[in-house]
């Protein structure tokens, strides 16, 4: 298992390298530089500025420097926030984004599994079509409509929760963003869970378990649930990518000082190093979380686990 994990971890490196290279050259070969939209600069000042940011060197040298910097965790200076490096900005924003994202993911997974199981186990009752109907709508309704609606209802009309803002450690600031981010995922996971649960419940080993007289509760929890969870686990990778994308909307709408908002502001101001740095961070996160989901899957699924063991020997 450990060897499998290590080899998969190594497999990420070339992908990450390609992502960084692609992003770097898209940004650098694009028409227009970071100093274009300011007042027209005299050639001397422009040359000085470019020298200060290392933009006068040949492209390959710049690329080499950037890669070398990345190895030290240095994303270069920000073009927009003059007194900050991109690393500082990311370090400042990422904890906020990760808090919201992690809470949303936990909420979506627990809620989705629960809702899916309830629906699957009450298939002949009104609960199933009701839960699934709500899930379909929750899955399709766009985040950017749902989020302001929730703000309007819970923040303004009912006044239960703050509409937006971020005070460090204030729990009620977290609720709406995390719930908003979780809703579509929760709905999707509920559907996934219901489908796989029904499939597992129809299989032979469940019939055997029931036939030998195990209590229904035990059959569900010990025999049916683990295999039924597998599709949910394999969805965790794409789900975390969706959380990262969704947090852009949520952060800018709820006024959270997260890295997503820095990214958007950087993008609007053509702050290339900031956008580049964020893309690299997000790519690393996405790849890492995908890997994590795969590893959990391999660990949970006896078929994959045994195949891995054989390979490892």
């Amino acid at each position, binding site marked *: 298992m450990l060897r499998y994990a290590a080899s998969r971890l190594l497999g990420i490196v070339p992908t990450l390298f390609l992502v960084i290279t692609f992003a770097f050259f898209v940004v650098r070969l694009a028409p227009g530089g970071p100093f274009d939209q300011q007042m027209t600069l005299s050639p001397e000042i422009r040359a000085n500025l470019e020298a200060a940011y290392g933009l006068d060197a040949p492209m390959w040298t710049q690329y080499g420097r950037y890669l070398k910097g990345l190895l030290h965790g240095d994303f270069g200076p920000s073009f927009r926030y003059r007194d900050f490096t991109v690393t500082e900005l990311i370090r400042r924003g990422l904890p906020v984004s990760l808090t919201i994202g992690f809470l949303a993911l936990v909420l979506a997974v627990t809620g989705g599994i629960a809702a899916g199981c309830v629906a699957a186990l009450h298939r002949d009752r009104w609960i199933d079509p009701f839960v699934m109907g709500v899930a379909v709508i929750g899955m*399709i309704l*766009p985040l950017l*409509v749902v989020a302001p609606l929730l703000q309007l209802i819970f923040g303004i009309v009912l006044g239960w929760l703050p509409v937006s803002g971020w005070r460090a450690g204030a729990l009620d600031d977290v609720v709406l963003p995390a719930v908003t981010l979780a809703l579509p995922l929760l709905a999707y996971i509920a559907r996934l869970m219901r489908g796989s649960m029904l499939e597992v419940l129809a299989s032979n080993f469940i019939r055997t378990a029931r036939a030998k007289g195990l209590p229904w509760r035990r059959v569900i929890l010990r025999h049916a649930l683990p295999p039924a969870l597998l599709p949910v686990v394999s969805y965790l990778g794409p789900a975390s990518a969706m959380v990262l994308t969704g947090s852009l909307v949520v952060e800018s*709408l709820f006024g959270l000082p997260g890295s997503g908002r820095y990214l958007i502001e950087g*993008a609007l101001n053509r702050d290339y190093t900031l*956008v580049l740095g*964020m*893309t690299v961070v997000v*790519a690393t996160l*996405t790849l890492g979380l995908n890997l994590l989901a795969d590893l959990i899957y391999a660990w949970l699924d006896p078929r994959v686990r045994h195949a891995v063991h054989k390979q490892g020997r």
Partner: protein
Amino acid sequence: MNAVAAVTGPVERGLWRDAWRTLRTRRTALAAAFTLLLIAALAALGPYLSPHRFDALDYTHILAGPALESGHWFGTDDLGRDLFVRSMLGLRISLAIGLIATAISVLIGVSYGAVAGYLGGRVDELMMRAVDLLFAMPQFFFVLLLAVVFDQNLIVLFVTIGAFGWLVMARIVRGQTLSLMHREFIEAAIACGVSTPRILARHIVPNVLGPVIVYATLTIPQMILLESLLSFLGLGVREPLASLGGLVADGAAHMQAAPWMLLIPGGFLSLVLLAFNFVGDGLRDALDPRER
């Protein structure tokens, strides 16, 4: 002739006929398709019915609520622009982006998947590895990057969003092609010496059309959503034009004073997304052989 008809029975069968028969029983999908047609007609004709222009500022009606007498049927925004005309134009842009981006992703996905599945072996493996690789990347962030770099050019926007959606399509088409490769009619075509491009175009592609149509229908709302996300963040379609996402962003900023600015474009966006998804689900029941 009559004898044959008697043997095969009075009911004609065939992929498309069967599909139509199944589709007719799917009430939700039909209602959704009808809704879409209605919305499309409204988007096409609506702006001509209104006395207002999409970028005209009406200083006497700023943040005015929906009213019949002023001609601002859906109200106005914070600059006094007519929300009805703006919503209709936003619908046009969103629908156009959905359709064009999907067409691009279908074009790339189908040709890529068919070639990979048909050639097989190492080429196939390499091509699919590339797809896996692209799949693992944070695609939305690349679209965002390109939108910034190319200055939110509308055409570049269409193409990048389209180039984002072909991966799943390529996988589906490749899988279908692989399963077709063992069928007799392909063997027959190869034995007759039909050229590879012709086999792909005449025998493979028509036979994967069912799943392609289903998935394409489900891709349209994804593309619309993607563009509206970009516009919502201020990185998509530029002022004074606005797609539904941009209008929703404006509405979210003024939702307390003018909730209609949020509810109307948001409602249209939700309705369009829901309708496309329901049509796609109906088509899947009708066309996808795996679902039977």
